[in-house]
């Protein structure tokens, strides 16, 4: 059918506008439009920038630089949510309504993303969530138009557990007292206990605080083997953990390694064992090699960061789906094509699990080390955690 419409357009174009052929040629191709919804300003703008860079490179890689798939041209429009839910809805509506996009990709904040989810149901278009982490996106608030290439809080937690939990290990957790921290600890607890560890203490800290010494004091009192920290946001407890000599007391620290800017703040955490979603030195595959090389070339030597491969993966997923449907953008066709679909990413293959459309993906068990050529502590691979190993529980009651 796509061919038909293509020829229709062809006729229209030639009939109506006797313009130079080069320009007509541009218009004769049918276009697949993707709306990229992300934080270009606001608290999460650094993440937004990573997603955008990753997405651009991902499209290029997936289409071999042609920006075309199944004979259709791919265009994308970036909209800034300003990290505000109401703006996100406004921008998403503009993408769906005015730009008539076929896919939405985004966004950096869980709040923005959750606010946009009902729109996807209203407009019946596919959204690829990247990199918002809230469990409820693929849980309570999920609808069938939602896919996620980003990892969920639970996936993080399961990976975190896999990195340290063993029979007989005593673990305490330290997290910020909001949804991300609470969800994360709950999931971590389940996963860690399944692996035979015991959780001896849960500590929640004021997300806006600067003094965590009381929290740390209580953790010290609980005398765990490991302290697992779930932390997002700028202010962090690393320095204070060091100041209060937590590691000297035989309590090993563990956490998810964050983006490079935040890794710089983790001097005090060298030796820490934990997990990460991505660091450019970790995956060992051709896609990642291309990403690293190309990224450096485009962005004067800069390396891809935590959420760059996510943007890349979202682009790869869309192209893969379109290839599978042969360019058909009918939403139901796309959904059935994407459920269970496996596609390449800089982190190796990912698979959208049919039940909740969460992409199962490789995570990395790491240790933070000082390394030549890096001016910050680097996550060094201990072991790859396979997609199956870090699969979170299905939460959408489907």
């Amino acid at each position, binding site marked *: 059918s796509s061919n038909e419409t293509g020829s229709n357009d062809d006729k229209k174009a030639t009939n109506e506008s006797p313009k130079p052929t080069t320009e007509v040629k541009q218009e004769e191709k049918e276009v697949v439009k993707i709306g990229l919804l992300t934080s270009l300003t606001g*608290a999460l703008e650094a993440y937004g920038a990573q997603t955008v860079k990753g997405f651009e490179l991902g499209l290029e890689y997936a289409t071999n630089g042609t920006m075309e798939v199944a004979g259709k041209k791919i265009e994308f429009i970036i909209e800034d949510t300003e990290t505000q839910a109401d703006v996100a809805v406004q921008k998403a509506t503009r993408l769906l309504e005015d730009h008539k996009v076929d896919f939405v990709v985004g966004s950096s904040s869980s709040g923005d993303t959750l606010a946009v989810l009902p729109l996807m149901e209203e407009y019946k278009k596919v959204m690829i969530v990247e990199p918002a982490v809230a469990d409820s996106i693929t849980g309570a608030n999920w609808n069938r138009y939602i896919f996620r290439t980003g990892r969920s809080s639970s996936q993080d937690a399961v990976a975190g557990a896999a990195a340290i939990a063993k029979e007989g290990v005593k673990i305490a957790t330290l997290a910020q*007292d909001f949804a991300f921290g609470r969800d994360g600890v709950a999931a971590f607890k389940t996963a860690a206990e399944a692996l035979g560890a015991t959780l001896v203490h849960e500590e*929640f800290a004021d997300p806006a*605080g600067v*003094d965590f010494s*009381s*929290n740390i*004091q209580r953790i010290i009192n609980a005398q765990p083997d490991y302290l697992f920290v779930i932390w997002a946001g700028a202010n962090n407890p690393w320095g204070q953990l060091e100041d209060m000599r937590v590691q000297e007391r035989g309590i090993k620290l563990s956490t998810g390694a964050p983006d490079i800017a935040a890794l710089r*703040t983790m001097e005090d955490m060298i030796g820490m064992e934990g997990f990460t979603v991505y660091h450019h030195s970790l995956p060992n595959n051709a896609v990642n090699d291309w990403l690293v090389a190309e990224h450096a070339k485009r962005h004067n030597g800069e390396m891809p960061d935590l959420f760059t491969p996510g943007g890349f993966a979202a682009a790869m997923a869309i192209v893969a789906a379109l290839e599978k449907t042969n360019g058909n953008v009918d939403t139901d066709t796309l959904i059935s094509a994407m459920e269970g679909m496996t596609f390449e990413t800089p982190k190796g293959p990912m698979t959208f699990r049919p039940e909740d459309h969460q992409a199962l993906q490789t995570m990395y068990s790491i240790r933070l080390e000082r390394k030549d050529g890096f001016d910050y502590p680097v996550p060094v691979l201990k072991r790859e955690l396979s997609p199956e190993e870090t699969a979170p529980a299905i939460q959408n009651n489907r």
Partner: protein
Amino acid sequence: MEMFINITINGLATGMLIFLLAAGLTLIFGLMDVLNFAHGALFLWGAYAGIWTYTTSGSFIFGIIAAIVACCILGYLLERFIVKPVYGNHIQQILITLGAMLVLSELVKVVWGPNIIHARAPEWLRGSWEIGGIFLIKYRVFIIIVGLIVFAGLLFLLNRTKLGLVVRAGVMDKEMVQALGINIRKVFLFVFILGAGMAGLGGMLFGPYSGVIYAEIGLEYGILAFIVVVIGGMGSVLGSMIAALLVGILGSYAAYFLPEIALAVNFLLMIFILVFKPSGIMGMKEALK
């Protein structure tokens, strides 16, 4: 027992840090009665300018000087172009300084990028002493000392010189003060710059304390500074000090014993104080009408 001492010391240090952030506001808001919402932006700039200088030059002291100088310059510009036209008009102050706040916070991102920036204490202030289960984190001891010095300096300035009087009089009746032969514009400018410089110092010292600085600290801690000045009693340096320590220590204990309400503890404290002692802890001005 050690635990209580530890919690208290840490609360004290946090309180002192908050005092440093709020001390400038005690002058600008408490004394000059300017609702300066850009105060947060001042210590944000202090933090960035200071930490940047510190990391590039390697000298912590240079960093502190840079922070203070940068904020004095900013304070000068703010006073001259933003605050001066709106003395005495609170509503306009809110808007215009909020505007300045937005511009300055966003400019930080333009100049230094949106990423968080790492800030570590210098070598000689890193680590801690441990005395029989009691931790003395060096940097915190340092903060406490600096806080005390600033406190003493301010007390001297306000109680031993005519400055405090002139400013308070100027706020009540600017024309009359001028008619008494005092160049109140200059005095206000000076006090504003002084407050700004102290904000810069506070911001700079905040960096290594929290380990990182980022563009949002301006608003977050700006509000906290306002809370401290209000519950301490407008214009009272001693009040601000007590309030800051109270917030710090209470926060520290709440985080340990009642983590559930730790988030709300500052606000509860403020409500409690304003309802039962509306002029603040050391208020000279009545909050009640």
